[in-house]
């Protein structure tokens, strides 16, 4: 039965002009209903925020619990994200070193390099002559003095080949094919550590996902429990408004906003804690990286990550509240 027909049933009952005016304003269409709907949304968003603020300690405790649940998967994700940067660097460094026979001179070595460059599956080939190899070796090891005492350059010329396909299996296949090329003495590649790293990265990603799911569920339960108590404390109000014609959506709305506020608050707290924690760890991490001669930038959530965190925490709060309210509304039947 729509409100339109309801007005018609009562119209003959009351004949004073005031009620007729009332009847007309009730029958106005979709526009006014949308206005009423958005008005109630605004009112409930305000009201539920006000209820949170009125009990600051309890609200804050809930939000801190949510924040803690969010921080763990987020932190792990950040670690994995910075590992991914390492990972792509490793992919780029998935090169083959082709050592040439010692008997080959520089002109022949250039020819071999050209041959390799034209082989299928090869993205590029860079010749490192024996002299260049020596220079690089000296630079890397800082053994200028010791090596300068050698009469002859013991290093063979080599060609650094970068494969098109960097997956371990493809690289292995390519190395086998390159060994047959004339003038090639040996092809070196170290794939075991690369594979291990790949596996580790996958493990980390799955762990992050599992933790995110687990702790997301935790957030649902935290919000659900808080909202359950809120529903219980407003039981009489729910009974009364149900008796006088409130829809489920109407009853649910303030609690959904409470849940969303809790989620947003928890998300903001988690974000702040991550930022602070990152700053706190930045100095020692950078010092550590520098001691390895690497430069390492502390990972941050960034705009996208922050938005993802806040939106998903708000949605989780909303969803947790929705589940709790729906479950408990069934128990509340007006006496």
């Amino acid at each position, binding site marked *: *039965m*729509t*409100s339109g027909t*309801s007005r018609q*049933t*009562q119209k*003959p*009952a*009351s*004949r*004073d002009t*005031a*009620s007729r005016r*009332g009847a007309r*304003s*009730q029958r106005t269409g979709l526009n*006014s*209903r949308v*206005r*009423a*709907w958005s*008005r*109630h949304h605004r009112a409930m968003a305000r009201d539920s925020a006000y209820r949170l603020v009125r009990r600051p300690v309890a609200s804050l405790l809930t939000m801190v619990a949510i924040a803690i649940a969010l921080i763990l998967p987020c932190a792990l994700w950040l670690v994995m994200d910075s590992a991914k940067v390492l990972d792509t660097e490793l992919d780029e460094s998935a090169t083959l070193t082709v050592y040439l026979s010692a008997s080959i001179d520089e002109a022949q070595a250039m020819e071999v390099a050209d041959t390799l460059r034209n082989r299928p599956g090869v993205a590029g080939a860079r010749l490192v002559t024996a002299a260049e190899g020596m220079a690089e070796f000296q630079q890397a090891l800082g053994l200028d003095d010791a090596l300068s005492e050698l009469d002859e350059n013991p290093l063979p010329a080599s060609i650094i080949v970068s494969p098109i396909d960097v997956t371990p299996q493809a690289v292995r296949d390519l190395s086998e094919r390159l060994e047959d090329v004339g003038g090639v003495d040996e092809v070196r590649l170290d794939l075991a550590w690369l594979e291990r790293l790949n596996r580790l990265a996958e493990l980390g990603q799955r762990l992050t996902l599992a933790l995110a799911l687990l702790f997301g569920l935790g957030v649902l339960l935290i919000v659900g429990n808080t909202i359950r108590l809120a529903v219980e404390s407003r039981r*009489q*109000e729910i*009974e*009364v*408004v*149900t*008796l*006088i*014609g*409130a*829809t*489920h959506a*109407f009853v649910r709305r303030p609690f959904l906003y409470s849940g969303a506020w809790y989620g947003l608050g928890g998300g903001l707290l988690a974000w702040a804690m991550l930022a602070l924690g990152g700053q706190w760890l930045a100095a020692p991490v950078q010092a550590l990286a520098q001691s390895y001669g690497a430069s390492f930038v502390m990972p941050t959530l960034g705009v996208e990550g922050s938005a993802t965190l806040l939106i998903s925490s708000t949605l989780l709060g909303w969803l947790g509240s929705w589940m709790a309210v729906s479950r408990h509304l069934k128990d509340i*039947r*007006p006496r």
Partner: protein
Amino acid sequence: MIAFEHVGKRYGGRFEALADINFSVQRGEMVFLTGHSGAGKSSLLRLIMRLERPSRGRILVAGYDIDRLHASQIPFYRRQIGVVFQDHQLLFDRDVFANVALPLEIQGLEPHEAARRVRAALDKVGLLHREKALPIELSGGEQQRIGIARAVVNKPALLLADEPTGNLDPQLSADIMRLFEDFNRIGTTVMIASHDLALIARLRHRVLRLREGRLIADEHAAWEAV
């Protein structure tokens, strides 16, 4: 307005709260429902409010078989019925104005229109000057009048009251009943459950008597015989 056709209600399969109830109430009538506590008065009102469904029979309100209402239609059905409770069921965390405005808020009425109607309803129950008071600051009789104002604020076609004078002294009770008569006079159908037989007899309206879940008497204007 209301028609009961062979309505029965059992709870838990054993206890028979109502059995084979038949009556009809015309639009604009004022009817008392009486009987000892446990006779089935509240059950009958709960059936009309669609808080419960009959185990047997059919209930028509304003021509609709309310058992056929879809769950999503029930709130809109209830908005046509004003209900007054014995314990008035006011919300103590908000003032009188907000309490009376509640049904209009649920219907999504424009605030200025709602305010106008709330004041009209408060004026009718004589408590316009208390709109900013909290329910806890009011006397029992005043609280009940606020409950009535809330029930009539959206001008329902049907007004139900369950023991509205149960906690009030005779003078206040008479005042409350006079209020119901006023609403009835402007066309509202009124049904009041009460066991205050002396008061009912004085008011000279139709009386439905229940005993142990059965309708034992339907006294149309019994006062004419006196």
